[in-house]
């Protein structure tokens, strides 16, 4: 009954409320729209800024200016035709490194190692299919570092650690990194004398992968590529970087390659 009596009031209130909420919605929309417009203005301002900065950068780094800097300071010359290589075989010509002391020592040690241990054989270096320059590097730093580390007492320990670490890396060269990282915790858990040797081995397991990647990519390119990036400097300028981890080496290599690609002129 009382509801019946207040029906009109409720109606009025409802309609009023509806009107109010509609107005609120409208207000909200207006606010949102204003916000949107503001953001859009900001975007436009940012785009203009980007454009003007690009223009400024382009003007400051104009080709005539680069030419002048090159003439005055850098003195870079265009690569000669002999520096362009059409295939990996020509690249291999530039490999002229004598085996290091450590590598020679490794041969001797392996000869003395017939104590029932399985000798590291062919599967040792499958990751180095095309990486000509990288091949010898893999063995060398392990031995050097292991023998120079004071905590390692026995050479045999190094030798024992090597095949164990190498073997998992051998069948699947693509996932060398994963293997290496999983190997690390093991090494640290063990701690003790074998630790450094294992770490070194793991690090080296990463490096061939990085080197392979770096070296294999130019190989994969067709010889008639429009922008030849296989410049002979690439392998020659790559020193043995046993102190860097694999990732950094890969980064440096790719950076060097990029730099040479665009720095052709």
């Amino acid at each position, binding site marked *: 009954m009382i509801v019946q009596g207040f029906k009109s009031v409720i109606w009025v209130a409802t*309609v009023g409320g*509806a009107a109010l909420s509609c107005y609120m919605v409208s207000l909200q929309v207006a606010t949102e729209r204003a916000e949107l417009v503001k953001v859009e203005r900001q975007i*436009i301002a940012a785009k203009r800024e980007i454009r003007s900065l690009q223009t400024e950068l382009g003007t400051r780094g104009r*080709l*005539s200016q680069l030419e002048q800097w090159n003439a005055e300071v850098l003195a870079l010359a265009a690569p000669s*035709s*002999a520096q362009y290589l059409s295939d990996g075989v020509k690249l291999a010509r530039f490999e002229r490194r004598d085996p290091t002391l450590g590598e020679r020592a490794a041969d001797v040690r392996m000869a003395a190692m017939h104590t029932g241990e399985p000798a590291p054989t062919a599967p040792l270096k499958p990751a180095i299919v095309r990486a000509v320059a990288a091949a010898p590097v893999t063995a060398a730093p392990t031995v050097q570092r292991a023998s120079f580390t004071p905590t390692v007492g026995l050479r045999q320990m190094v030798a024992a650690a090597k095949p164990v670490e190498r073997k998992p890396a051998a069948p699947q060269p693509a996932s060398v990194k994963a293997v290496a990282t999983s190997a690390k915790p093991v090494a640290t858990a063990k701690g003790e004398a074998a630790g450094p040797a294992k770490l070194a081995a793991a690090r080296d397991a990463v490096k061939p992968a990085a080197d392979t990647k770096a070296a294999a990519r130019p190989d994969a390119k067709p010889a*008639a590529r*429009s922008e*030849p990036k296989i410049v002979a400097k690439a392998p020659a300028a790559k020193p043995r970087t046993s102190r860097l981890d694999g990732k950094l080496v890969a980064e440096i290599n790719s950076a060097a390659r990029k730099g040479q690609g665009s720095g052709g002129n």
Partner: protein
Amino acid sequence: MATLAADAARFGGAPNRPQALALTYQRLMLVMLVFAGVTLMIVGRLLFLQVFTDRSGAAELSNPLIPPRADIVDRNGVPLARTIDAWSIGVHPDRMISNPSELAAKLAELMPEKSADQYKAMLTSGRTFLYLSRRAVPELVSAVNALGEPAIVFDREPERLYPQTALAGHVLGWTDFDGHGVTGMEKVLESRLSDPALRGQPVGLAIDSRVQAAMEAELGAAVAKHSAEGGTGIVLDVRTGELVAMASMPTFNPNAAGKSDPNALFNRATMGVYELGSTFKPITVAAALDAGVIKSVSQRYPSNAPVQIGRFRIKDDHPIPGSANIVETLVHSSNIVTAQIADQMGAERMQAAFRALGFHEPAYVELEKARPLFPREWSRATVLTSGFGHGIAVSPLHLASAYAALVNGGIWRPATLLKVSKPSAGRRVYSEETSLKMRKLLRMVVVAGTGRKGDAAGFRVGGKTGTAEKVSAAGGYSRKVNVSTFAAAFPMDNPRYVVIAMLDAPKATADTFGFTTAAWTAAPVVSKVIARTGPLLGIVPDESREIDLSDMMALVAKQEH
């Protein structure tokens, strides 16, 4: 009100109760309709706003990003011309409050283009508005603002900027203060660049700024070294007719075109016509091969005696003793033999050969170009001298297009400065076979002849030198003042680009042993440009590849020793 009516209805009494109740309901309904109507209006307005306002707002906002004039970029998208917002400084002389002479002195200090007296005259003129400086740098704007004169106003206005400064200045041209193209591609593309529908999209030119920069650097160095009056360098894609680089020395800065030397504004590649000398010999030989006048490259002509024609006497600096075949003729650049070939061709066929290459009309390119000096009367002397590039003057661009036709399989295409996706069909000028022979002959000139200095290791360059004697101011040819040209194409096993370098009146230096010939002046420019830009143009140098020259080598081997 409604409650009262309800109460009245409940307690009864009044005889006109039903009518009153009906009236009440009517009123109530009316009020409700009013409310509903208002609500509907609000909802409708909201919907209207939602549907229509949003888009128009967005459209309004996206406009500022479209530049008032489209950008010009090179074939790789590097900006060559852009429009930026620059400051302009203006003054309302009628609203001045400070002392004009003091202000004029300060302005003269900041902007030394005009004297203090000139500024004072401007400030006291009583006009409503005058520009003090347009395209002012921000530092100047803040310095003038610091003077504190409210009558001085600052405004942003669009300014055409050429970020690469002098690079390809002759190609780009420049705009006036109102932003309309005055010369160059700015003028050619005026309607496209200012079209509101299209100006958001940059226009791509055929120019490759890296190649252009290399060409300008090498050509500039050669012009400076030989103290030449000027020079021209062209790189032309033989398959499409696109001009990858077109340089003219001296250059100017289109950002300040008005301040540059009028001589520098002249584009020698299209506006200059020159007798290009021996670079015409391959054209004559190709025409003769095509016409059947030369049946084989081993065909021999007497080469030791000068050819006398009227008052002219056609002779060689180093005549080939005895007779010479076609390979030797080009390798040693013999005027005597070329004149005889031209003589055998006759006026009709020589004219037709030149007309086929468009030598009788302005070069086919978008820019302003000059009309070549094509002889009207073809006397026998004209025929003979035109065979080795004298008595007919064309622009270096004509020569580039002709060389493209020589090596690309015999198709002549108009040159263009716009990036093309589909090359024009062109027209056949030489047969495929002739073109193949010409490739070998041009390569022979570089391997065994006058063009050795134009070679770039691994790029299989072929070309022809041309050293024409310039007509001196007094009339008559001067032996000392030359137009030295080297026209080349590479790689000769599958030609992709024609490269031309021309030096106008080069002077000998110590390391050229007193020579001003093309081999010592223009050819090294071509060699350096090819070595620098070949890889950028997609040609990998390879010293193990070479076009088969064994048959031609055999023809010059006898003569060499």
